[in-house]
């Protein structure tokens, strides 16, 4: 009966109740949505690289190595000699390696010289491997494979000739114009820096810099444990490696760090990625702060609407008191109205978020490679809803107290 009284009472003030409900729903939508996307982005970020056990580069900071090898940000301090790369690749525990050679660009997009192993062993997200939207992997020295964003931004497709420039600016003076590369494949979106990268064969980079004419000779070959390409570059920028057994990760890391020939270091991508995400904490907190303020505005609005309604309810208060209702009952009645609005708001906000995620999921995946899960009722989501309920109760305390005092002063 109590619940019925509270709902019916709200229904008589349909207009203001609906407006308040909408405000709360929007706030809950924003709050849950931001939390959800924040988590998904963090998960997606943390798995920019997966399946790679170690990243090896010249001695530098671990974040710096991660930034230039994975995110193509900043510049490497030192290269690795081909010999050192070979020595480590031949270690017993190493299953495969992906060499990375940086330094060239095209229209502002970084070019990475690598091998076929990249498409085979590089994973992102939850062990998702790279997929080709068009074409396939390198077959010839001057073949290039584009990231999804590069292809869509520049309007390239398979068969397009591209000229690489030395350095990173799109207006670089040194262009390797005599050596056009041909696009042979375009990757599906991944939501990782791979989307913004042009991948060419390591041999192509060497050939381009060496001034070798575009040769019909295929020097393509997979880089395996025991086999490296015929033409040997002098050095590469970094390389990723996979182990036969993850148990040996730290052993191999130590072997790399103590490598005698030259100063090298190995990092665990997962650890380095979470270190990097820590630096973005401030943005996460700003987002959270904004959504909290939106919620605050909504519950305060609800408090104001309920407070204004008390003034019109004097006869009702008098009647309830005459029937034997205590002032506490009337206090609880207003709190109950607030709880109903809040729960309905959660239902409405949560459902709209779910529908929005369902509808936007495909777009987000194809445009940004951000895979959005639709399960919003996570542990964090429940915590947020709990906090919203408490905020509602606190905001409704003002009108409830007013109701209580009005009930006490009835005559």
């Amino acid at each position, binding site marked *: *009966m109590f619940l*019925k009284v509270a709902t019916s009472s709200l229904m008589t003030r349909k207009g203001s109740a609906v407006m308040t409900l909408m405000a709360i729903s929007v706030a809950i939508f924003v709050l849950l949505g931001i939390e959800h996307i924040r988590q998904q982005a963090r998960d997606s970020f943390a798995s920019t690289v997966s399946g790679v056990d170690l990243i090896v580069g010249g001695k530098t900071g671990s974040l710096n190595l991660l930034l230039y090898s994975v995110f193509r940000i900043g510049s490497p301090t030192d290269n690795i000699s081909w010999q050192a790369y070979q020595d480590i690749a031949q270690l017993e525990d190493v299953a495969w390696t992906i060499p990375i050679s940086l330094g060239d660009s095209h229209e502002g997009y970084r070019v990475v010289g690598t091998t076929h192993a990249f498409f085979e062993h590089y994973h992102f997200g939850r062990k998702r491997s790279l997929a080709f939207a068009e074409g396939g992997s390198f077959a010839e020295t001057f073949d290039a494979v584009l990231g999804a964003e590069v292809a869509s931004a520049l309007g390239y497709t398979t068969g397009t000739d591209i000229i690489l420039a030395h350095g990173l600016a799109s207006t670089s003076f040194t262009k390797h114009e005599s050596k056009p590369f041909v696009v042979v494949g375009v990757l599906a979106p991944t939501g990782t820096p791979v989307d913004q990268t042009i991948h060419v064969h390591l041999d192509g980079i060497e050939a381009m810099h060496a001034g070798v004419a575009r040769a019909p000779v295929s020097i393509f070959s997979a880089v395996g444990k025991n086999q490296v390409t015929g033409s040997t570059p002098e050095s590469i920028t970094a390389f990723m490696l996979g182990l036969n057994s993850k148990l040996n990760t730290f052993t191999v890391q130590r072997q790399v760090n103590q490598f005698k020939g030259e100063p090298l270091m190995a990092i665990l991508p997962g650890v380095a990625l979470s270190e990097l995400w820590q630096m973005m904490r401030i943005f996460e907190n700003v987002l959270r702060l904004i959504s909290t303020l939106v919620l605050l505005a909504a519950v305060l609005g609800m408090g104001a609407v309920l407070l204004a309604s008390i003034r019109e309810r004097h*006869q009702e208060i008098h009647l309830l008191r*005459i029937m034997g209702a205590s002032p506490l009952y009337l206090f609880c009645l207003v709190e109950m109205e607030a709880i109903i609005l809040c729960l309905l708001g959660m239902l409405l906000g949560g459902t709209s978020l779910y529908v929005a995620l369902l509808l936007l999921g495909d777009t987000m995946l194809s445009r940004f490679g951000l895979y959005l899960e639709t399960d919003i009722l996570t542990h964090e989501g429940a915590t947020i809803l709990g906090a919203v309920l408490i905020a509602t109760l606190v905001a409704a305390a003002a009108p409830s107290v007013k109701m209580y005092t009005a009930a006490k002063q009835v005559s």
Partner: protein
Amino acid sequence: MAVQLTGIQFSFGDDHQRPLLDIDHWAVQRGERVLIHGPSGVGKSTLMNILSGLLTCATGEVSVLGQRLDQMSVRQRDQFRADNIGCVFQRFNLIPYLNAIDNIGLANTFSAGGNGRWREEAAALLTALTVHKDSWAKPTSNLSMGQQQRVAIARALINSPEILIADEPTSSLDSENRDNFLSLLMGLIKERDMTLIFVSHDMALAKYFTRLEALSDITDKPD
């Protein structure tokens, strides 16, 4: 003794020099039907609120059904009122956003026992009060004034109170509805052997009551 007032003084605010009500002694026997009349603004409604325990006096004893209201806490008075006193007013007797049945059910939830069979009791009361079944589930704001006042009686009687306090319940009714209302009310009061304290300015109602009181006779005005 249904009601016994001894040495009570009531004034709004701090105006203790000229109290609105100043009653030396006044009592109502069980089963009496008292009509209190007098001009408006002399404290009839205030007296009713004191009897129902909604208002408390600065001094004096208020005893209802042998219990001292002036010694009870607010919570105890609320509970006592819900269990033992029914009230009907000139208007706003029903929660406008609930229907007749729910109004009666709500009143039932406040009584200590909470009658599990209140639905049957409510149906019996509404039938006895000639409220047509079609109107039971309608929002009370859609009922005529006459119907509303009769539903109000059912609402006031659902917890089987011993005392019914009525404050000008017929003032919003036309003469036909008024006579209908009164004869139905008196029928139920007699049947249940209740005490009725009824306030009105309308002396024409006198024939329904066992005792007539002018408020000016009850209260000793200092002037």
